[in-house]
């Protein structure tokens, strides 16, 4: 197990280095620069040139990269020109809303998707199965912002039950905090839930053709026991993969939903930083997301062994 983790971590560092290089190149190839954003559209070229020099934007790109990457290796992701604070602090401040939203959305997705997926698999071919899968297909196909805007229109503007946009930190009270997250979490959860429900169904169907399920049924066990204790546990590995991936995706900031609901999370930080050309924030945030993506994948792989004792990493 230890050797396996070590191997994974080495490859993880290589992946992250490639991400850092590609990320840096793409951002610096994009036209536009922070000086123009800071000074406004009617600033003269002389003033722009002066600020560029002061900010070190005139340095050769290789030198800028070397400076940045050596900082990263020492745990310093750089400095946000626009927010005038360390990138790590900017990411930290924007992480809270994204984490809350991610967890809430994931809970909504899992709580609804897994029972519905199991139910659909159990009644394969029935109208319930077909109806659920049509709903799931809709959930995957409908863009989340469309769901979000409709929810705002219905539940916020028309009914005035929930706030239309914004964010309140956990420190303002749990209800206040959740109140602002319900609509965005549902908008996000629907899509992730639909994915998980479909995966649950197909994974369950595969397992339910196995001999041991027939044996369990022949023993006269209750359907529910057969479904959850015998079938579901064996079907869970691919489902877990999907949950892990969807969690990783959400951690990266639900860019669109955060914009629609004006939630100051990582997605919004990245979009704003791209618009402002706040280079080091974009680089730092992308690197952070890549890191969490590979880490979550690693954790999911390790969880396989826990869920399914047959999986052993030592020999691989």
């Amino acid at each position, binding site marked *: 197990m230890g050797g396996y983790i070590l191997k994974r971590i080495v490859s993880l560092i290589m992946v992250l280095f490639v991400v850092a290089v590609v990320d840096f190149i793409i951002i610096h190839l994009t036209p*536009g620069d922070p000086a123009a954003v800071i*000074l*406004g559209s009617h600033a003269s070229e002389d003033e722009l040139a002066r600020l560029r020099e002061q900010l070190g934007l005139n340095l050769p790109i290789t030198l800028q990269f070397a400076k940045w990457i050596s900082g990263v290796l020492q745990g310093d992701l750089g400095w946000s020109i626009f927010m005038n604070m360390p990138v790590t602090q900017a990411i930290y401040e924007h992480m809270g809303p994204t984490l809350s939203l991610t967890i809430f959305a994931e809970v909504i997705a899992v709580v609804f998707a897994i029972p519905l997926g199991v139910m659909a698999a159990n009644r394969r071919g029935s109208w319930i199965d077909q109806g659920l899968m049509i709903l799931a297909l809709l959930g995957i196909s409908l863009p989340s912002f469309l769901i979000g805007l409709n929810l705002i229109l219905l539940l916020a503007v028309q009914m005035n039950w929930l*706030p239309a946009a914004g964010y309140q930190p956990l420190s*303002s009270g749990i209800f206040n905090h959740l*109140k602002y997250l319900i609509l965005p979490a549902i908008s996000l959860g629907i899509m992730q839930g639909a994915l998980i429900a479909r995966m649950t169904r197909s994974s369950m169907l595969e397992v339910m053709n196995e001999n041991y399920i027939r044996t369990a049924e022949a023993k006269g066990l209750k359907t529910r026991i057969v479904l959850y204790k015998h079938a579901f546990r064996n079907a869970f590995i691919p489902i877990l993969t999907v949950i892990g991936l969807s969690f990783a995706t959400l951690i990266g900031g639900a860019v669109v939903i955060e914009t629609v609901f004006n939630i100051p999370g990582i997605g919004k930080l990245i979009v704003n930083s791209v618009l402002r*050309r706040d280079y080091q924030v974009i680089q730092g945030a992308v690197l952070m997301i890549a890191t969490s993506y590979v880490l979550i994948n690693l954790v999911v792989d390790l969880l396989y062994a826990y869920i399914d004792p047959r999986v052993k990493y030592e020999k691989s």
Partner: protein
Amino acid sequence: MRKFLYGIFVLIILVSFVGCSQATQPTSETTDPNKNTTPPPIKDKNELRVAMSVAPPTLDMHKTTAVVTQQVGWHIFEFLVTLDKDYKVVPMLAEKIEISGDGKTITLPLRKGVTFHNGKAMTAQDVVASLNRWKQMSSTGRSALSKTTVTAKDEMTVQLSLEQPSSTVLPALAYPVQGAVIMPKEVIEGADEVGVKEYIGTGPFQFAEWKQDQYIHLKKFAGYQSLSEPTSGLAGKKEAKVDDLYFIPVPDAATRLAGLQTGEYDFADEIPFDNYDIVKNDPNLTSYVTKPRRYNGFIFNTKAGVFSNAKIRQAVNAALDMDSIMMAATGNPDFYRLDHGLMHQEQAWYVDSGKEQYNQKNESKAKELLKEAGYKGEPVTILGSKDYEFLYKGTLVIASQLEKIGMKVNLEIYDWPTLISKRGKEEGWNAFLSYFPLFAEPTQTIFLDSRNNWPVPGSYHNPKMLMLLDQMRATSDFEEGKKIFTDVQALYWEDVPVIKIGDMYGLIAMRNYVKDYQFFMDISFWNVAVQ
């Protein structure tokens, strides 16, 4: 196990509903004024939450030309002199304006008892430090004060010594965009390349907190010394009638509107014109058409390429049908006005010269001019951006009108920062559509004076134009100056470095309990109350 899971499921559903019902009972909200909670449908807190379309890059007003910085900043900072409702320069932090007989000395005694937000009394030293920094950083400051020395005559008097009389110094000091605001000397001295480290002014609101991507919080400044004269434009009495003022960047227009409808925000700027009917029909909202606010202009690359030839620019000007461009941009005639003036009708500087060159809609004349200029179908690159919907739509119409007179148009659409950086280079573009804020006096018009190097160094340069502008700057008599401006505007319409398309208004909306709202030049919230 099954029962346990079922229990958890029911619990989650219940919690969601409790959350919902909490939202429907605004009175159960906490009313602790130190806590930032959501405003209920009826305003019970003396605060104002303003949804803006963008976040400012900084609040250091000396530093940037970004209009949004001024929208927030002018609540914190004040000017020596300002503009009244007729756009005339009147004192603000200065007690009065004294101009010597030869016009070469302007003496500004300061109002006594004005303190900064840090408790320090304002003196002439602070003013000198502020004006010198501003003069270095802003192009308005540089052109107006280049031959002017600012000194402290005594503790409470500032003196401007001019080489020759000038009509532009005072309007420049009063102009709010990248304005000559007064900050404490120590703050100026502590500034680095990023800007000042603290936002300390003398205004009716003081800076409290900036939570990036969430809000900028200003608080009422208890020690504010207001003028007693009635409010007029930016001048006269200013009073913070709310305790807390929040500027919340909400880039998504639909969210801005929805948040206003639910009471999450009390005021929203830049409502899309398409939503005019929704705002008008909502019984809780009051809408307001802001005018004058800006004009749209089609900006040529006069340094290089096809449009360095004035004849070809004239051809474009002859061809354009301003009404259809403005209609495309706004979608509603309530939001624009066709006007040829470089200054707005509401301003005393407004003149009629060059009117015949505006909105000609004359295709045959345009084709004739193109032929005379020797245009051979070289492709013309027009930059556009979807970041500003009205500019994008206007750009499309302009492009099609140019194609009609036989120009080969190549539209390139980028995000706004890319567009700005592209237009800063000599090559790679020929024209783009943008907008200009209100100017306090004509020589501030950025594209007339080649010494502004805008949009690129070496842009439109006509010695006669420079001579006229300098003459105007040296004329202290208003009527005399206006006469020269008549020639300036006529010459502008001949040379057309930029084609003025039309005056465009803005749409803002607020909850009904927002009282006494007045619009002048841009959004401001002193003297505004909530009930």
